[in-house]
């Protein structure tokens, strides 16, 4: 499994334009970073949980892909719990550690927030094919095709770099320089990989040029990328989640504007 092999499927989520997914993840993130409170995050999380059922991932795929978020969220929360801004009653102190009513509340808010922002972002992006994303960026957002396609083609070389790295390691042992300190060896090997990757990159550039890439005439697109009703639905759903989260939070008096603190 790598960044180049998104899970494939036929569910609705796979047929949504990557640009719409980008927008949806962006809308939720912006709304939720404006305030640190438990109310907005839990409303968003609850609504998202309903949408995850329609995302088309099996429970196994879902938890495997989102594992980093499930690990990062509690770690962040524990840090805030121990060292977060103290307020209210103190429950436990030890050196710099000070667990208070305030830090408990902040920790819960942080936990929910990381999940509410991270989970949808991961779920939206594991279903993005890099080629489709590039098509969307170039055709919908009108980013320059030279950069978008250049980056896309370069991404494919990543798999070759892993293979190169292994060979470089063996070659160093064969050349008698494998006993050096780990750090020195790593630095040398990293430099060698850089040299190799530049050479591979320039060969790829020649091959692309030979097929007319970068010529001045207008480019056509074999795969059409445009926004449709399905994409609108996703963006509206994300806006609704963001709106509901902010509304509930403000109405219950929990809104805690980040710039106003």
């Amino acid at each position, binding site marked *: 499994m790598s960044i*180049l092999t998104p899970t494939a499927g036929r569910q609705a989520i796979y047929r949504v334009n990557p640009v719409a997914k980008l927008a949806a993840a962006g809308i939720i993130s912006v709304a939720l970073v404006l305030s640190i409170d438990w109310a907005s995050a839990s409303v968003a999380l609850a609504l998202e949980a309903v949408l995850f059922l329609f995302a088309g991932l099996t429970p196994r795929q879902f938890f495997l892909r989102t594992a980093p978020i499930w690990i990062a969220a509690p770690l962040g929360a524990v840090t805030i719990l121990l060292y977060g801004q103290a307020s209210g009653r103190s429950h436990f102190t030890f050196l710099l550690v000070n667990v208070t009513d305030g830090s408990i509340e902040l920790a819960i808010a942080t936990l929910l927030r990381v999940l509410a922002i991270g989970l949808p972002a991961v779920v939206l992006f594991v279903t993005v*094919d*890099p*080629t489709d994303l590039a098509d969307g960026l170039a055709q919908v957002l009108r980013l320059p095709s030279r950069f978008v396609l250049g980056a*896309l*083609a370069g991404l*494919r070389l990543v*798999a*070759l770099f892993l293979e*190169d790295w*292994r*060979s*470089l390691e*063996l*070659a*160093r*042992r*064969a*050349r*008698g*320089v*494998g*006993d050096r300190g780990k750090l020195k060896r790593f630095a*040398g090997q990293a430099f*060698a990989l850089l*040299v*190799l990757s530049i*050479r*591979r990159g320039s*060969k*790829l550039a*020649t*091959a*692309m*040029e*030979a*097929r*007319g*890439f*970068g*010529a001045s*005439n*207008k*480019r*056509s*697109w*074999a*795969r*059409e990328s445009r926004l449709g009703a399905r994409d609108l639905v996703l963006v509206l759903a994300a806006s609704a989640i963001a709106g509901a989260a902010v509304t509930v939070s403000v109405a219950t008096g929990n809104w805690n504007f980040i710039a106003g603190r």
Partner: protein
Amino acid sequence: MGSAAASVVARGWGWRHHGRAGWAVRELDLRIEPGERVLLLGASGAGKSTLLHALAGVLGGDDEGEQIGQLLIDGAAAESARGSAGLVLQDPDSQVVLARVGDDVAFGCENLGVPRDEIWRRVRNALDAVGLALPLDHPTSELSGGQKQRLALAGVLAMRPGLLLLDEPTANLDPDGVIEVRDAVARVLRGTDATLVVVEHRVDVWWKVVDRVIVLAPGGGVLADGAPDDVLAAAGDALSAAGVWVPGHVPEAPARAREAGAGLLATEDLAVARVKGSVVREGITLTVDAGRCLAVTGPNGAGKSTLGLTLAGLLRPASGRVLAHGLSGGLAPDPISWKSRELLTRIGTVFQDPEHQFITGTVRNELAVGARTLGLSEIETARRIDPLMERLRLESLAEANPFTLSGGEKRRLSVATVLVTRPRLLVLDEPTFGQDARTWRELVAFLAELLEEGSGIVAVTHDRALVSVLADTEFRMSRRRLETESVVRP
């Protein structure tokens, strides 16, 4: 399918790469008529690739080099005619642009601004023409080398060029891949009247496909030009000496007199794995003796290279053992347990891609690395390096960066670097891959001398000619079974 065939005209044309003293090509005058099928030959460094890149319009502008004279496709300057010529390059891995087969073939058409419906029609036609019967969304990362080259050919065909340019399209392929690509090209040519120019060392592969052979002279200009058989009769010996693989010029086996020496290394029910946990091959039992060459052969994916690297003490056996009692000299018999420095005088490994093993900025330093690690004096180091540089024609390149050398020079350097520390066993992974006939002869002669001096050699190879002139024993790894057989020389 295809657009009108293009003509090529060179008038006093020449090209010099930026920062180089000599011209890559100079004073070239030639005319190729529309629809001709041309094999372009010449010694390494005669400028064949440069000419092909210039015709494809990918040599670059004034900052990349200097041009004299004229090079025209259908009467227009080649650099402005991009799209009228389609180029397939040597390295299969660096020509795949996109992740799916269909998208990759469509890439060139998109760049030319071909309408969408027309693109997909062309994509299907081009894949048919090269015989790649795969779904359009098949991942390009799962293709073999031969399939990748056919994909590149399809991508070029879909652009409907009047001039098809092939730059050593089979040099990096195994024997099956070579035939696969050659047949695909032959089939394509039956269905189009495009002009063809192909560069290749191995003449026999293309002999039946072309109707004209042009030989570039190393100093500039044209050495020979005409129908294939006429050129062969007139310049066959000169071509062979210059490194071209000419049909009928069979390499001779170097004479060897030495009896087999002591056993150097043996395996006990060995299983090999490239990545820990995924065993490629098991049940391997073989021996390597001093003064003898063991060839390891078999199709791609059979585990030949993995076996080579395991014998060389670079990969840990997945199970079983490699026992090098004849080499250990006081150490434990398992090469994998030796320190990197301890390998230097015992087992030398030459990798398939020489670029993986270069670690310094000049040829001389590259050769000195092993000697310095052993702590040899400057005088002793020079005493070992100088004859090697002379023997392998590297003296004039002492201060050059290893990465800037030609394919043949890189290979010779990678062999030389290993020999400086005088290991008693050599493990070579595809030592003759993509080499011209001259480098091939030199390598074989040199390896035969090492055998005579009592070294042992393990050569992982697809090259039947190498097996027949050098190997004493062949260890065949077919997909089904493993077998050891003595090589009988004619």
